[in-house]
């Protein structure tokens, strides 16, 4: 108790707040990026750009890690097909929201249904959830590893479906009885030629004036074309807002009787069933909700990118999300956000920054073009420079190796993730003794005097739900 009066005690108390943990972590990450930007001698424009793209990746990985945490951390559903649900989300959204073929002088090979973007986003999420339902229905009755196999196979089926020439373009009936040319674009990708979603969103909120003001404000610092910078910064902020919304939703989901059953399923499904819980229903609802959230994450990641290709959705993206979740600690929503942020900042964007910083500080010469010239001076004259340069030059490829090493290290040394063995209590109220009366220390040796845990008399359970 006296602990709280000392400054360290207050700090410790503050640290116990989840929001403070996340804010502190983000502060450290942003500070690190700003400092490395200074080292690089970035202009204001460069700094703002790097912050915007950092925010973007923190946003998408945190949302994906949160959604996966619902599957794995809470329900124990081993989903390694995350990209499949993301792909279905954005492709269905594009299908619904792209303008009709030939409308508005678009150069796109195929059109869409021309419906408003919010309708498209909603449709994309529903489609991802329905795909989740279809995948889950047969697999949920089997053991966890079968679900894993089914999900990864599904994600590849989705990718190849969007790659196939059959669905590249086809006719689709419209409400007016005619048909319109639609499609998924095949391997060459699909142009997302709907109006800019962010600007449309801002317009709906009636904040266009404020946005224009912001552009003018930034224009004072970055005279040349401030628009894209403001756009990506604001989009990053919107993504962080989405992270907050996911967090809120999943926290409420977890801290409830529903979340309690999910946790029980994760721990021992037979027990949950023996206690009268229809675990299949809980698993399916949890799986579909997570899939819808993954679909939305896919939409948010790609809808501002101008185009989407199926090969973006390779399985390794799924494993990036898994690494983010494992770093943060499965089972904890706060951990998922922190894991997403650390993954985005250190493992995903970090190596490139490291490369840039080293290159700009040391100004080394050109790297050898291939492995032979890189390794031969090291062997013949013990000159490590060409090899080091080559390594630095190959950072993009080595990134995956680094991720693998980090994953192995985590599994060995900290399988419970950054936040340690922390569990978020699954109840809608704080559990603990209420009222404070009726001391338990009566030391009664006669259990008959204790109240029975039994309540209503006629519990024949006739109205059991099916």
């Amino acid at each position, binding site marked *: 108790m006296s602990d709280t009066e000392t400054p360290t005690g207050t700090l410790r108390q503050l640290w116990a707040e989840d929001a403070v943990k996340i804010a502190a972590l983000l502060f450290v990450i942003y500070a690190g990026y700003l400092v490395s930007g200074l080292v690089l001698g970035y202009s204001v424009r460069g700094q703002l750009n790097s912050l915007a793209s950092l925010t973007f990746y923190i946003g998408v990985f945190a949302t994906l890690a949160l959604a996966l945490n619902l599957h794995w951390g809470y329900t124990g559903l081993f989903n390694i097909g995350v990209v499949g649900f993301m792909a279905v989300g954005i492709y269905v959204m594009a299908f619904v929201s792209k303008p009709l073929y030939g409308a508005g002088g678009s150069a796109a090979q195929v059109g869409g249904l021309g419906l408003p973007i919010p309708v498209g986003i909603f449709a994309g999420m529903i489609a991802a959830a329905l795909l989740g339902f279809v995948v889950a229905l047969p697999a949920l009755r089997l053991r966890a590893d079968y679900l894993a196999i089914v999900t990864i196979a599904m994600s590849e089926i989705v990718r190849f479906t969007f790659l196939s020439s059959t669905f590249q373009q086809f006719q689709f009936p419209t409400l007016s009885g005619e048909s319109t040319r639609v499609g998924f674009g095949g391997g060459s990708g699909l142009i997302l030629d709907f109006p800019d979603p962010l600007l449309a969103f801002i317009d709906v909120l009636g904040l266009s004036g404020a946005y224009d003001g912001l552009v003018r404000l930034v224009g004072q610092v970055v005279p040349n074309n401030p628009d894209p910078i403001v756009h990506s910064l604001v989009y990053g902020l919107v993504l962080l807002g989405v992270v907050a919304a996911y967090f809120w939703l999943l926290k409420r989901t977890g801290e409830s009787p529903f979340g309690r059953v999910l946790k029980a399923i994760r721990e021992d499904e037979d027990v949950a069933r023996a206690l009268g819980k*229809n675990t299949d229903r809980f698993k399916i609802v949890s799986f579909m909700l997570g899939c819808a959230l993954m679909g939305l994450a896919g939409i948010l990641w790609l809808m501002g990118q101008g185009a989407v290709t199926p090969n973006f959705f390779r399985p390794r993206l799924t494993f990036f999300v898994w690494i983010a979740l494992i770093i943060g600690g499965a089972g904890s929503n706060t951990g998922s956000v922190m894991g997403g942020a650390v993954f985005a900042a250190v493992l995903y964007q970090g190596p490139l920054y490291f490369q840039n910083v080293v290159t700009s500080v040391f100004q080394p010469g050109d790297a050898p073009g291939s492995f032979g010239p890189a390794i031969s001076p090291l062997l013949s004259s013990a000159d490590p420079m060409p090899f080091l340069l080559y390594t630095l030059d190959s950072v993009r490829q080595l990134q995956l190796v680094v991720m693998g090493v980090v994953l192995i290290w985590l599994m060995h040394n900290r399988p419970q993730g950054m936040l340690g063995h922390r569990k978020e209590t699954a109840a809608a109220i704080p559990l603990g*003794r209420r009222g404070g009366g009726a001391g338990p220390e009566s030391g009664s040796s006669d259990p008959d005097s204790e109240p029975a845990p039994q309540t209503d008399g006629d519990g024949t*359970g006739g109205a059991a739900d099916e």
Partner: protein
Amino acid sequence: MSESITRSRPDVADTPLRVEGLTKRFGGITAVDGATFEVERGTLTGLIGPNGAGKSTTFNLITGMLSPDAGTVVFDGEDITGLEPYQIANRGLVRTFQIARELGEMTVLENMMLAPKHQRGEHLWRSVLPGARGGVVEQEEELLDRVWEALEFFEIEHLAEEYAGNLSGGQRKLLEMARALLTDPDMLLLDEPFAGVNPTLEQRLLDHIHDLRDQGYTFLLVEHDMDLIMNNCRHVIVMHQGEILTEGTPEEIKSNEAVIEAYLGGDV
């Protein structure tokens, strides 16, 4: 909440559970072979037999964990053969497990809060939507009171905040029985509730069981320990090699030649 209500007419001979011709084969082995028996309301009935007699399989068949190849299970006048475990539990027939299956990474309180049936907040939308969550919170508060009463009844309230995985074997057995009771069952099937429990705790568990039986609960108890069954049950069913060997009062069982044969390993 605290007043204990007498169960429906414990004096009337009434059989909530009736098993007829229950049969289960695993490959070439017949684990349970035409088991037929009844359990009387408000009694503590023992089910004994040597290892491999088919006791646990019988339990699994009754509670829906396995589906029988033949035979019927009738609970409270309703045929529950082949229903899902959760459906059977929701009808008031609840089991515990041979090896206590606590939910290790949940606290004792969470374990207990899980059990009550038909919780409003088990529907996702009610737990999430701002308008509906008030009702969920209200019910959680009621449940928490019941949970504390149960914890006190079983004298494990000092463990409330502990992770269930940190409990000792005996404490887990107490937790499991307390949790099963919170589902508000009519009848409890206890699968070796005393295995791995020290004698003091064993006596406490037995006291609880007798108390609850006096309140009108019905128990079917699988147990290895002959003496324990003989001293505590009014009616004993003996299984051997998947079949019901005999049943009767402890005195009758004790003097039954076939039972002695089975237990002393006289493999005919």
